[in-house]
């Protein structure tokens, strides 16, 4: 592989520096802000590493939704001064961390500089996989079980977070007018962007997760702006959350019943199946992430 260019070195230094800042800043607000910056720097790194899908997802999910969650935590509670950590433990931990890092750095030098088996296999089989974009094909066909289970992780995380809310959910208190105005602009833009990402995903970067993150963003904006529907934790919202997983399982069971085997997509209709599942999944992910956010928002409004 090529030697490291100056740009690589600078980018690496930037990532490490921001990461260090994010974990070293003593205040919650500082740490969270630095983390958001880290998301941006990482998105650049991903782009540099030929991974536009990840860059999009990082922008939308990694710093978008997770950032929104973290920011919301900040508005909820000021950081509490905790007990100071024991000094011995900190010293031992730091030393061990340094040793581990040094050892790990040497270990990874043994990584062979040759591609793995899989890119070739993907290239060979991608025709008839239902998506021309390789990452989408992997996610929704070759390794569709992973994707199904990952959607399930989201569903059950939402259910778990929802279970922690013990009071009826309501929209936040009256919001200032500028927020509502901003929301009116942002909302359609996010929805449009999400839809485009979804449709584009079969042939170029983009797909259900990035689209879902956009939808989630739209719902969060609507929630912050006081829209009642976005605050709902009712049956409909829960149904949308699980719809992706259920649709996926239904597809799997359907192919099994038809005698092809679990999740086996026939090239004749693979494209349609992938797009359908992606669409349901995207909406589902959007609602699911928004549910986690709402659950988080409400957890602090429990009357004392």
């Amino acid at each position, binding site marked *: 592989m090529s030697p490291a260019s100056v740009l690589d070195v600078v980018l690496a230094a930037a990532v490490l520096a921001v990461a260090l800042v994010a974990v070293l800043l003593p205040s919650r607000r500082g740490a969270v802000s630095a983390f958001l910056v880290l998301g941006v720097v990482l998105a650049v790194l991903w782009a540099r590493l030929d991974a536009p899908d990840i860059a999009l997802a990082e922008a939308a999910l990694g710093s978008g939704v997770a950032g929104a969650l973290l920011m919301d935590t900040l508005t909820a509670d000021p950081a509490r001064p905790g007990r100071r950590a024991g000094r011995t433990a900190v010293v031992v931990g730091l030393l061990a961390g340094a040793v581990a890092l040094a*050892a*790990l750095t*040497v*270990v*990874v030098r*043994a*990584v*062979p500089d040759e*591609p*793995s*088996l*899989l890119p070739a*296999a*993907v290239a060979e*089989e991608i025709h008839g996989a239902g998506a021309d974009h390789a990452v989408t094909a992997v996610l929704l*066909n*070759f*390794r*569709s*079980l*992973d994707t*199904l*289970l*990952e959607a*399930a*992780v989201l*569903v*059950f*995380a939402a*259910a*778990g*977070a*929802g*279970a*922690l809310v013990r009071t009826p959910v309501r929209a936040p208190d009256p919001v200032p007018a500028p927020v509502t105005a901003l929301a009116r602009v942002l909302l359609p833009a996010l929805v449009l962007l999400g839809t485009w990402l979804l449709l584009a995903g079969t042939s170029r970067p983009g797909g259900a997760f990035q689209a879902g993150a956009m939808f989630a963003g739209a719902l969060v904006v609507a929630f912050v702006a006081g829209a009642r529907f976005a605050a709902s934790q009712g*049956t409909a919202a*829960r*149904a949308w*959350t*699980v719809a992706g*997983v*259920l649709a996926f*399982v*239904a597809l*799997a*069971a359907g192919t*099994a019943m038809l005698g*092809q*085997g*679990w*999740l*086996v*997509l026939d090239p004749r209709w693979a494209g349609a199946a992938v797009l359908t599942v992606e669409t349901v999944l995207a909406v589902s992910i959007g609602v699911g992430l928004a549910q986690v956010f709402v659950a988080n928002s409400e957890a602090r409004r429990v009357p004392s």
Partner: protein
Amino acid sequence: MSALLLPALVLGPLAAGAVAAVVPRERGRVRAAVGLTTAALTALACAVVVGGVATAPGHEVRVALAGWEPPLGIVLRADAASAALLVLTTLVGVAVSVTVAVRDDAGGGPAFWPLWLGLWAALHGVYVTQDLFNAYVLLELVTVGAVSLVALGKGRSAGPALRYLFVAVVGSLLFLLAIALVYAEAGTLDMSAAAGRVAPGPLLTAALALTLVGMGAKMALFPLHSWLPVAHPAAPAAVSAVLSALVVKAALVVLWRFWVALAPAAGGAAHVLAVASGVAGSAAVLWGGLMALRQRRLKRIVAYSTVTQVGYLALVLPLMAPGGEAARAAWSGGLLLVVAHGLAKAAMFLAAGVLTAAYGSDHLEDLRGAMRHRPWVVAALGVAGVSLAGLPPTLGFAAKWQLLAAGVESGQWWWVAALLAGGLLTVGYTAVVLRAVSAPADAGEQAPEPPPAAVPTVQAAVPLALAVAAVVLSVLAGGLAGLVADTAPRGLA
């Protein structure tokens, strides 16, 4: 037929969990009905799959999902070891489901059902997956389900749940790095395919070490165990049973599978790590036992007992190391122990739950007279304790005997000593519990014997049924051990 049903073991409970999540929380009966139906169907499907494994040539049922074989696709494969785990999970799962259906307090309310069904699905997945990254995703699903269930506990359960989440995610991240290292060298994520494409070297050793530490943290192997005695007692009774009996085993199974596939290629370094695992296991046996003796609360005693038993299970790695007959014995002993411990621990936690519900506390002092008022429950505690201590005629004895045989066969004395010492300590803390519940009302101060609150009979009978299952299954231990040993790994370097 069993090949057709194998993925359904994962996807079925998963879909049911999703459906249960849609049912409004106020309709607890409906959720319970969904849960019970799923439990019954899952048990049926498990029976078919286990039957298929037992009759299939080579004792193996295999499905390539989405029609893609490795290296591209993901393979689910059930062997004798998976079958043993499926049997355990079915027994405990049905018991827990019935317990919560009878009194939903035991599960922490109606939020229990979707989370539990999702967890159940993920556990099945862990037992049968052949793909490293798939195992990671499944472990995360297990974590999310288990942590959310802990948070359903009464009182301050969020703190323990959060700590558990942190530890589990750290363990997963270390494991994910290990997967990346294996992938970097082998170019594939399928465990058996990767086994043939790795060579001894720093990458493989580092992957094994990271997996050992990561899974060690997730399964609470000493000295990474401190979260367990906090998290398990904080959960609702039925959840504690699931956590101790099954969830801890998920990380263990991943560790064993990873080890069996990749350690033989790693040479001497794997042996050093196996010995480290054995040392940690022996320390866990002693530490957990001593701490259990020191506790005054029933649930804590049971939780520390889990620390001890995880230590036993960590001994399997060094015992398997020399290969040959010893490895067969260690492998089958380890799996029998997983089943034995699962049944006993589920029985103990469910029994503890019944006593806590009846007496309003799990302090040993408050449980005086339980022997007279709740003889079934105390009998469950006693029988389960006997199985944990590895005394005949229980499954625990059959397991311990195999491990002893492996230790003696391979000349590894020190582990034998740990096994024996652990048995002594287990008898010790079981006796502490039994003495406390058998104490007459007027022992100590003059306080009158607390009148126990009513608890549904079914709920009291379930723990005893599980404990008795550990005895009844021991009758078949010879056959089980033989079946498992037939498919034992060929031995490790």
